[in-house]
């Protein structure tokens, strides 16, 4: 019964999304406030029914109702409750329902918080959002119904991929989807602006918070995915340039470009066509990500659900959405006139440079991801791009971008003074020189040394404004807090997010070139040496988890004979559906992270043990968290609150017709 209620709610949501995608459009064309208002009501009602549908699915998973086909295939009554619930999105059907739910959440949020938007822009934005929703709900209803019944129902379910039974992976998809889907708002705003035929600085101010929020979620999602790969796949890697990772990185890169180009629209009333195009591209890349994961066009480890028929449907959605948007762009973008030109040394010019870098990197990742498909179908040859190819262009271009990232935020708008800006960056220069010297002393490899120099430059450079405020000469120390908190939150956001990039880059550079690895055959009581530690295998025991059995290896970690820590490393066997996972023993540290994974047993009672020391590797994820913090700080800026800018924008429009 619950499943049927859920199915019914989903159908109602579909009908509402159809209403939402049409009526407000008509209203906006006829200037009818009543018809335009239908958009808001429909968006909120759609959200309510999507929540209900999702709640029903979560409920059938929670009570293990195996008469529902999806539950029978993906759950098991032995599973802990949290993984029963995360099982809701650990499969194709459920994850698509989560996708549309998040789409509905963003649509509903725009309807609720966007009351101060011009009514026709709001109506058209919601209509586009409704259209995307309608297509995806139709996709679920017609090809991937999560509420389908199974008759007769089995006694128990057939489990869940044990690789997915993990707190990291339980939270990774929702964040990733909130990022992907969040970019739909920027997309809908862009299409609405194209239909309306105008983009004002205020438009950028309305779009930016949504884009920034989506960007924060996506950053978080990518971070969780990479941290999961690190501790679950059992060999210490954290990024593989796998197609499925690449498709999450591409919207992130394009979305980062979008956040920055929207600033130029807002401040300088320029780069309008480009920003609209970026908004379309960013969401399209999210859709391509969905398509790739769901269709199996490119082979990947992550292809949990591959089904060509669904691929055809999603390709159809992609054609309708991106193809439609780009057609509209080709026809209408010439209406968007550039209001201001700018000089090569200015804040806006540095933001353009940022976009050139980010979009080139996105293009490179795109080409690398799809080269095998393109080469196969065009030339009949087999080419595939592996990690060396990606690193070859990604590392130098990212480093190049980082050099300018320190400079951009301290250049003035319109016309900057390069010499003055460089003088302000003298502390960063000193830091870079210091990093270079210590890299030479520590005999770092050339790339690693270069990365350290640039990261130090960026880390200190991004703090320039804040340091200047804090260390302002002749000011008292008591006023320090007041001075710092008087800085706009957006300035804090920029500084913190840029510093986060530097920290991640330091983590990548140092861990990539300075890791130590030891493989040994150990009997209980024997030990191995790693990075100045003595790692002693105490015992390997059979243990019973809630739905798995485990070989649990206990280790003692000693330095100079003194016990430092105990480490547990496991190899788990899940009888349903019968597979193994490695739960590496990890001792995370700010400086060095010790990583111990248990290999196979030998006949003589000894075990293969692999231990790594990864210096600074936690900085990679720490830096990501700092980036998210920066984004959040920026979001909390008064200027970006959706309601605030309405009056200013009217004044501006009157003064400067676009």
């Amino acid at each position, binding site marked *: 019964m619950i499943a049927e209620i859920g199915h019914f709610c989903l159908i109602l949501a579909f009908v509402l999304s159809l209403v939402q995608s049409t009526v407000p459009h008509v209203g906006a064309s006829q200037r009818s406030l009543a018809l335009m208002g239908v958009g808001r009501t429909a968006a909120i009602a759609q959200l309510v029914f999507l929540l209900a549908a999702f709640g029903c699915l979560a409920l059938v998973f929670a009570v293990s109702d195996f008469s529902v086909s999806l539950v029978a295939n993906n759950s098991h009554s032995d599973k802990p409750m949290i993984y029963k619930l995360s099982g809701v999105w650990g499969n194709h059907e459920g994850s698509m329902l989560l996708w549309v739910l998040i789409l509905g959440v963003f649509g509903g949020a725009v309807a609720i918080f966007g009351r101060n938007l011009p009514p026709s822009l709001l109506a058209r934005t919601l209509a586009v959002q409704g259209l995307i929703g309608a297509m995806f709900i139709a996709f679920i209803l017609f090809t991937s119904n999560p509420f389908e019944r199974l008759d007769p129902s089995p006694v128990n379910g057939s489990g869940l991929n044990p690789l997915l039974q993990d707190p990291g992976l339980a939270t990774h998809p929702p964040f990733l989807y909130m990022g992907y889907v969040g970019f739909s708002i920027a997309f809908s705003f862009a299409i609405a602006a194209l239909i309306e035929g105008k983009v004002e600085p205020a438009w950028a101010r309305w779009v930016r918070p949504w884009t920034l929020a989506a960007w924060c979620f996506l950053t978080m999602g990518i971070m969780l995915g990479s941290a999961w790969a690190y501790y679950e796949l059992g060999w210490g890697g954290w990024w593989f340039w796998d197609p499925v990772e690449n498709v999450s990185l591409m919207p992130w890169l394009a979305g980062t470009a979008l956040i920055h180009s929207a600033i130029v629209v807002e401040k300088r009333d320029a780069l309008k066509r480009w920003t609209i*195009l970026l908004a379309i591209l960013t969401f399209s890349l999210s859709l391509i990500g969905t398509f790739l994961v769901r*269709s199996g066009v490119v082979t990947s480890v992550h292809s949990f659900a591959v089904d060509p028929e669904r691929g055809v449907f999603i390709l159809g959605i*992609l054609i309708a959405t991106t193809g439609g948007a780009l057609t509209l*762009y080709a026809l209408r973008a010439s209406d968007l006139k550039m209001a201001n030109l700018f000089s090569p040394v200015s804040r806006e010019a540095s933001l353009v440079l940022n976009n050139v870098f980010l979009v080139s990197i996105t293009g490179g990742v795109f080409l690398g991801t799809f080269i095998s498909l393109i080469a196969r179908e065009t030339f009949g040859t087999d080419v595939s791009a592996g990690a060396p190819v990606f690193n070859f262009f990604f590392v130098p271009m990212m480093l190049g971008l980082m050099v300018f990232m320190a400079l951009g935020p301290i250049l003035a708008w319109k016309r900057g003074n390069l010499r003055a800006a460089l003088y302000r960056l003298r502390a960063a220069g000193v830091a870079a020189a210091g990093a270079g010297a210590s890299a030479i002393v520590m005999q770092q490899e050339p790339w690693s040394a270069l990365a350290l120099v640039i990261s130090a430059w960026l880390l200190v450079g991004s703090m320039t404004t804040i340091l200047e405020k804090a260390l302002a000469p002749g000011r008292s120390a008591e006023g320090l807090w007041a001075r710092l908190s008087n800085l706009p939150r957006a300035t804090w956001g920029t500084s913190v997010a840029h510093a986060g990039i530097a920290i991640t880059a330091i983590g990548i550079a140092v861990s990539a070139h300075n890791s130590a690895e030891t493989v040994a055959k150990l009997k209980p009581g024997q030990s191995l040496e790693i990075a100045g530690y003595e790692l002693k295998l105490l015992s390997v025991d059979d243990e019973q988890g809630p739905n798995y059995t485990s070989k649990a290896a206990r280790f003692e970690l000693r330095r100079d004979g003194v016990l430092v820590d105990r480490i547990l490393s496991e190899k788990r066997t899940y009888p349903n559906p019968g*597979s193994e996972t490695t739960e590496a023993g990890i001792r995370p540290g700010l400086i060095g992270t010790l990583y111990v994974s248990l290999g196979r047993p030998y006949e003589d009672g000894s075990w293969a043990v692999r231990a790594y020391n990864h210096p600074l590797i936690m900085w990679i994820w720490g830096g990501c968290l700092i980036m998210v913090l920066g984004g959040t700080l920026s979001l909390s800026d008064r200027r970006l609150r959706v309601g605030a800018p309405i009056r200013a924008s009217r004044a501006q429009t009157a003064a400067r017709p676009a």
Partner: protein
Amino acid sequence: MKRALLFLPLAIFLGLVGYFAIGLTRNPSEIRSVLIDKPLPAIDLPVPDRPDIRFDNAQFKGKVSLLNIFASWCIACRVEHPVLLRLATEKAVPIHGLAWKDKPEELKAWIAELGDPYTLIGDDAKGRTAIDLGVTGAPETFVIDRKGKIRYKFVGPIDDYAWENTLKPLVRTLEAEP
């Protein structure tokens, strides 16, 4: 001219859609079938730690077997590995391993850590044999009949489902062949 430039993104996108559409019509596990029903190309590779023997075409004569392309750097191979180990313990079918562009010490560490499901491993450090086989990525698995002919190519990690539903029936049919 400037107007035409605005159509560029659309044109690129449509080209891409073409590729996606073609990509969809291909069953990922059946691409590159030109070698199917052809004899294995000439293989002559060293075997790690066994200077006395070679990994060559003679291994494949007389018995239906799998030729599994793997590498220590390949994550999907890690996912596949437990399945291969199980097949080896059950003696379901002989599995020959081809280590693709791997470093000897990493290959050795990998086998030491995860176990060895292979009857014999050929070390294709340069990736030359993999090119002759038309390998598109790792892991890939060829089904070889008793005359040493390639009969099927499976792309991606073998899981229980693929073994039970695709590979096992095929191997059993081939074993029944004269």
